């Protein structure tokens, strides 16, 4: 494993994503759902909304880093708002 050059923060990062995937997999199996059409005009399931949230969060973090110059953890707050919006309206 040493060749992968693991660090604690990246470990936590991937651990969180892995946990999210496991949780959403369990949710999808236990509570099957009907895809719905939201503001983007496309059909989405919970999994799709998770993907949109994660991808959007990556861009929010990059934009925060490149544009604001404020401490990075604050970007996570924006990401949470983004996540709530995606799960509510997309």
């Amino acid at each position, binding site marked *: 494993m*040493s*060749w*992968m*050059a*693991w*660090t604690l*923060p*990246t470990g936590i*990062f*991937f651990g969180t994503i892995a946990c999210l995937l496991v949780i959403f*997999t369990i949710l*999808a*199996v236990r509570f*099957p*759902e*009907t*895809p719905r059409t939201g503001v983007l005009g*496309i*059909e989405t*399931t919970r999994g799709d909304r998770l*993907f*949109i949230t994660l*991808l959007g969060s*990556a*861009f929010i973090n*990059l934009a925060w*880093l*490149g544009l604001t110059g404020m401490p*990075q953890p604050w970007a996570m707050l924006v990401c949470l708002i983004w996540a709530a919006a995606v799960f509510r309206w997309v």
Partner: protein
Amino acid sequence: MDKPVNHKAWFLVLPVLVLVAFSAVIPLMTVVNYSVQDTFGNNVFFWNGLGWFEDLLSSERMWNALGRQLIFSGVIIAIEIPLGIFVALNMPKRGVWASVVLVLMSLPLLIPWNVVGTIWQIFGRVDIGLLGYGLDALGIDYNYTQNPIHAWITVVVMDVWHWTSLVALLAYAGLQSIPDAYYQAAKIDQASRWKVFRFIELPKMAGVLMIAVLLRFMDSFMIYTEPFVLTGGGPGNATTFLSIDLVKMALGQFDLGPAAAFSLMYFLVILLISWVFYTVMTNLDKRGG
């Protein structure tokens, strides 16, 4: 859709997931790990946090490469899509010539990318290449190895030569699916050729054209081999697109940290475009386009 989706079938793709984990996910995780560290070799790493990302986001080099990449993708789409439609409209619809033309149109698509680069590299040379020699003989001072504009024109023309047939074939497939009744109705209404194109052919081709645009955008956004063989990213940095710049950084300078951060940002953009591509395609399918 009224029926809930049964997600249990997803477990059947587990073997593929394991394969992808080894071929893509684990290497990608390693890239993420590299992107937050610095190394001087010997597998010894130093924590650098988000430093590389910060450096890159404010680096002129990356933004310039991204700018060149976007201009390149924009230019080739602006040329290849109308040209592909034009070619498709003029291809024979049936008979033996239809098959001959289809085979001819497929030929450029079958040539490996590095060979395309080599073909154009020789074709454009002033001393032995037909194009370069011909232009020189006409009194045009053409030299793609020294003049950035000539290099750009050559790279764009090479891409157009290589990929317009893909657009043409897709548009042709769209045209072939239009029933004759539409044309007959247009004839009865005495519609002009332009109106037939605007109100029958173009809407019927919209689905495949969308696929063509997205395919060409994706492909041109990741282009590496052809310009690398043709110009090597030069003259200067004139044709250094994102992937060429990335390889220079990762393998030329062996800056693993910045290259990892660069490739992650590149990956995110590609992922976003792929998602748009996938979403548009599946939605077109649902609408029966």
